[in-house]
C-alpha cells in the first residue's frame, strides 16, 4: 500500500461512516445502539467492538479516547445539555485505524 492508497482508504472510511457516500446509507444508531448518540465514550467502545472485535492496541485506544472530548465529536451546545455525538466521525476514525487496515 502506498501513501495515495492509504489516503483513499482513510477518506473512504470517513465518507462512508459520515453518510457522505452517494448511494450508501449507514445506520449507526442501529449498529451502535440508541445510547451511543449521547455518549462519545460509549460510541467509541461500541465502534471498536463492532468493527475491530475489540482487537485494538492500548495506544490506538488511548489516541481515540483523547479525541472524544473534541467539540467536533461531542457537538454539544451551550443552550442544549444533550450531546449529539458525531457517531459517524467516531466510526470513520475506527475504520481508518491501523488495526482495521490489517484485517
Amino acid at each position: 500500500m502506498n501513501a495515495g492508497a492509504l489516503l483513499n482508504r482513510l477518506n473512504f472510511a470517513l465518507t462512508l461512516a459520515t453518510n457522505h457516500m452517494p448511494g450508501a446509507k449507514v445506520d449507526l444508531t442501529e449498529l451502535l445502539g440508541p445510547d451511543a448518540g449521547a455518549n462519545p465514550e460509549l460510541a467509541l467502545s461500541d465502534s471498536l467492538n463492532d468493527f475491530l472485535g475489540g482487537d485494538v492496541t492500548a495506544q490506538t485506544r488511548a489516541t481515540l479516547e483523547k479525541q472524544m472530548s473534541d467539540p467536533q465529536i461531542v457537538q454539544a451546545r451551550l443552550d442544549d445539555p444533550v450531546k449529539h455525538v458525531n457517531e459517524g466521525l467516531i466510526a470513520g476514525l475506527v475504520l481508518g485505524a491501523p488495526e482495521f487496515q490489517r484485517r
Partner: protein
Amino acid sequence: MKISRRVFLKGGGVAMIGMSAMPAFLQRAIADTLAPNKKKLVVLFQRGAMDGLNVVVPFAEPNYYRMRPTIAIPQPKSGGAEAAIDLDGFFGLHPSLQPFEQLFHSGQLAIVQAVGSPDPSRSHFDAQDFMESGTPGVRSTDDGWLNRSLQAMPEEKESAFRAVAFGPYLPLTLRGKASAIAIPDLKQFKVFGNPKVTEGGFEAMYAQTVDQALHGVGQETFEAVDSLKKLDLDNYQPENGAEYPKSRFGRSLQEIAELLKADLGMEVAFLDSGGWDNHVNEGGVQGQLANLLRDLSQGIAAFHQDLGDRMEDVVFVSMSEFGRTAHENGNRGTDHGHANCMFVMGGGVKGGKVYTKWPGLSDGQLHQDRDLAVTTDYRSVLGEILIKHLGTRDLSTVFPGFDNDPTKFLNILKG
C-alpha cells in the same frame, strides 16, 4: 552502530582530507553521493493506441495517401492550416500540433517514428500491460519499468513525492517495491473533515502503530499532506504566459509543474490520457483525433513554457500501446495496428529531428501485411533516457531480457 557508505560520505567522514589530494575515483564517488539528482522525468501514456501515422505524417510516402483516401493529412505544399506542418521534407506534424512546430525547430522536441513494442498483441489490455511492465510478451510481470528504475537508484531519505502518478490509480508503470503515490487531484490530497480530529487522529494512530509497513506508509502520507498544505494551490499562476488547456490532461500537466517548482523531491511523474481508440470517424485535419492532438500539444507546450529554464532538468516522453492500421477502415477510422511514434522533449534532448528507421508502407513492408512495422523498440528510447538523463547505471533489471546495449541507442539525448 552500522554506518553505510553513503552516510559516512554525507556525514563528512572524509572532510579532513583535501579533495584535490584524493584519488579521482573517490572524488567521483563523493560527488555522486552528495549531489542530489535534479533530473526529472515526466512520462505520458496515451491509452487507446494513438494513430501515429496521422500524427507524424509521412507525407512524402505515396502509399500513405493511397491507404487513407478520406482521413489523410494533406501535404504541406497544399499550405495553410489544413495541411501537415513540414518537419524535414518527409515527415510533417498534424496541423493540430502547431504548438510543437517551434519546439521542434528550436531543438527542444525530438520525435521517434516507427517505434513500439515488439509484441504483436492487438489487445489494448495486454499491450498496455506489456509496455508498462517493460517486458513485452511476459504476462507474469507484476511491477513496472519505471518503478524498477527507481529501485535501481535507491535513496537514503526519499521524498514521498519521488514518484507520482497523476490520476486515481497507480499505473502498472509505477507499481512495484519502490514507493510511489497516485494523486487524482492535488487539492484533494488531504484527509477529509476537520484536520484536528481526522488528520490529527489518524496521524497519531499511525505514528504509534507497531506494524512497520503501516507506520512507514502513514508517515509518508502525512508528510506528503503537510507538504502540499504549504503550497498555495488555489493561487497558482503559470509563468511566462503559459496557458494550460482546461482539460484533465491540462490540469495534470499544470499540477506536475506545480510540484516540480515546489521542489518537493519529485523525480518521476506519470500521467495518462484516453480517447485515442478511433475506429469510427477518426477525422483528418478536423475531427476526433485533431481535437485530442490540440489538447495534447497545447498542454505540452504550456508545460514547457511554464517551466522555462527548469525544463533543462526535465525530460518528457510519450508512448502509446500500439499504433493503428496503415489503411483506414470502412468507418473512416483505423483499427489496431503495430508501430507508433513517441515524443521526447526537454533538456539534453537533441531535438529538431525525426529519429527513425523508416520501414515504408509498400506491400511487403507492412507488419502482417497491414501495419507500420516496428523498427525501434520503445525500450531502447526509454533506456537511453534512464541512463543519460536520470543516471540509471544498469538497465538489466529495468528491462530484463532486452538487449540494453547503449551503443544501439538512437542518441536522442546528449551525453
